[in-house]
């Protein structure tokens, strides 16, 4: 089992001057007019009986998933772009209800710090509480705290059977309450969609029980804004939207300005940024999160 060499990547990031990083640019990509680096590409290993895999952060998610599929496994990251990009942005896909947040995927990361050093966060095993959870901080930090070079991720088995269903529904929670751990439940104000996985007989029993009919797939998601609201607010949404029931992520046709966070939390974020990147050289101007 090889170890991905990060020395060249660290050298490219360097220790002075503004620098940005790009993956496949599916999530906005790099900062304009700033020197741009890219993370190592390639899968180092896949361990099906550990349910872990190690790859360069520049590896496309699709490539990792193709390698895992040979073992009946997958990684719970949104399928576009690179592994590093998906982790840096930290936005989950519509399977979040079943898969959990993106942050739960990352077990270990080696990143290049603002000082140009290779730093390891987390550890290689599926369970680990050795030290502070720096991995959580890296996920969703949009490359503002360090540039991830390689990662060890948690994988999951691909379910034996997977099917989308739908039904008319004015109250999304009625259907939601009848399902046992659905992978996704979406609602647009009049129709509810559910993704059910597992044993085929369980899936069809569940669907019948909740009054759902098989359908081709989820609806297309409006792209005006991706709002994050308390899950309790989903039932009272208005406009053109598709909401993730039980999660509170809303794909809306209209634009949206996120509420201002707790000012004390924003101070903590600034303090972290000062600690990790005192001169603000990593992805300058990019807001985290």
């Amino acid at each position, binding site marked *: 089992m090889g170890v991905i060499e990060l020395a060249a990547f660290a050298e490219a990031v360097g220790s002075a001057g503004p620098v940005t990083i790009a993956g496949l640019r599916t999530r906005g990509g790099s900062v304009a007019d700033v020197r741009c680096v890219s993370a190592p590409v390639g899968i180092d290993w896949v*361990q*099906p*009986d*550990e*349910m872990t895999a190690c790859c360069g952060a520049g590896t496309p998610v699709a490539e990792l998933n193709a390698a895992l599929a040979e073992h009946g*496994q997958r990684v719970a990251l949104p399928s576009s772009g690179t592994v590093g990009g998906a982790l840096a942005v*930290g936005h*989950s896909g519509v399977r*979040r209800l079943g898969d959990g947040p993106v*942050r*739960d995927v990352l077990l270990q990361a080696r990143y290049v*710090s603002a000082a140009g050093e*290779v*730093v*390891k966060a987390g*550890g*290689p*095993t*599926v*369970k*680990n*509480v*050795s*030290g*502070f*959870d*720096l991995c*959580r*901080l890296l996920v*969703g930090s949009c490359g503002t705290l360090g540039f991830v070079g390689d990662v060890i991720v948690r994988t*999951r*088995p691909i379910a034996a059977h997977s099917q989308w269903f739908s039904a008319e529904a004015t109250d999304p929670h009625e259907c939601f*309450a009848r399902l*046992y*751990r659905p992978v996704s439940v979406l609602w647009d104000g009049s129709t509810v969609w559910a993704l059910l996985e*597992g*044993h*085929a007989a*369980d899936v069809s*029993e*569940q669907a019948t029980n909740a009054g759902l009919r098989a359908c081709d797939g989820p609806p297309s998601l409006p792209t005006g804004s991706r709002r*994050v609201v*308390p*899950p*309790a607010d989903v039932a009272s949404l208005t406009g053109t939207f598709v909401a*993730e029931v*039980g999660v*509170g992520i809303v794909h809306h046709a209209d634009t949206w300005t996120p509420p201002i*966070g707790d000012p*004390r*939390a*924003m101070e*903590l*974020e600034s*303090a*972290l940024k*000062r*600690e990790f990147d005192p001169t603000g050289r990593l992805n300058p101007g990019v807001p*985290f*999160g």
Partner: protein
Amino acid sequence: MIAALVDELRAAITPERVRIGSTELGLYGRDASNIGGSAGAVCFPTSTAEVQACVAAAHRHGVPFVARGSGTGLAGGATPLDHALVIVLTKMNRVLSVDPINRLAWVEPGVLNLDLTRHVAHLGLHFAPDPSSQQSCSIGGNVANNSGGPHCLSDGVTAAHILGLEVVLSDGSLVQLGATEAEPVGLDLRGAFVGSEGMFGVATKVCVRLTQNAPSVRTMLMDFNSVEDGAQTVSAIIAAGMVPAALEMMDQLCVQAVEAYIHAGLPVDAAAVLLVEVAGLAHGVEADVARIIEIAQAHGAGGVRIAQDEAERALLWKGRKSAFGAIARIKPNYYLHDTVVPRRMLPQVLRQVYEITARYQLQVLNVFHAGDGNLHPLLVFDKREPGVMERVLAAGEEIVRASVAAGGVLSGEHGIGLEKRDFMPLMFGPADLAAQAAMRRAFDPAGLANPFKVLPSPAACGDVQHVPEGAWV
């Protein structure tokens, strides 16, 4: 300094709830680990505002403070050093609200783990992390230690079940980290706080995710002629694409001790026993049970006992959970270790554990979360035997080193605290440790929240920072 602080605390939260008597100082001078410290004062706030008042007073006086839940931690996390102020959160034990539709709840940190599960049981829900100490440990302690339990194999450890936190920072200010929203804007501060072992601040409210109870559950016990066969069965089950709800292993000495204690009809002749629980919807569960039995038999499993009813299931679990009671019949004292290794390394590392303990003439029982490679060698001893504590500590250190050398980590669920602080360099280099120290500084620039835990002091500042050792008792 402490006297002035105590006066201020008494004015802030009433005199009865600030204690400096020798009984209280003794009682709160350590946690459930073998490490003792020294408390300067103990206070029992009942609200967020009172926690803020206590922390702000400690901050004004430059006195370190230690948040404490139930004190069941096993790594010395809640052990106060240098006469720190102990802030006990057990009086903040209300479930504040439950949203049964979206399956989440806001609770105070002193709520006991099992009490929360009982509180929501009538809704068909539970709090998934289930440490063996769940009858007595607090949600605040679970958050701070990112605790796990047998059923965290499929459902994830505490971190996967925390949505939001209200935290008192070391200057007494209050901050909200996340809430019911899935993905709050900005850095994942709540994620960073989970597992921070009381060193980032005091959690005063916690928003937890609740998990649906499984409609169908099957529990089985399988015995093996060798630890290797049991361990290989574990790897084969996972590689076959199944993640059981729980996958626990007990070795022979442990099974024998437990059987002598609870008489559950456990296979005392087996070298190793696996307790496997599969949970979910009925068809999937039955299919998985059949495949798991097939895999186990292909790996030489002898008997397979499937619990026929809830009573038998409870009995099998009682076997797993009685290890601590059972060992008292062997020796009066125990030292419980906690490391993780890749599953495929379980046979090798277990062999090393037996070899190391034999060399130090110690008895060891293994009862552990095999499904995620989380070893729990339980060394039993009688501390009145001269020199035994040194042997226990030396054997423990070798076990930790062997686990890390096998590609594992220092701790799977108990945390680092004082116990493993000086082992951190086995896993992390200076730059890695500096990054963790930077996280701490951002949350606690004053360095007053539970200092001297988790991070070994960098050699460079040895002259300005003394590191109390904490006495092994």
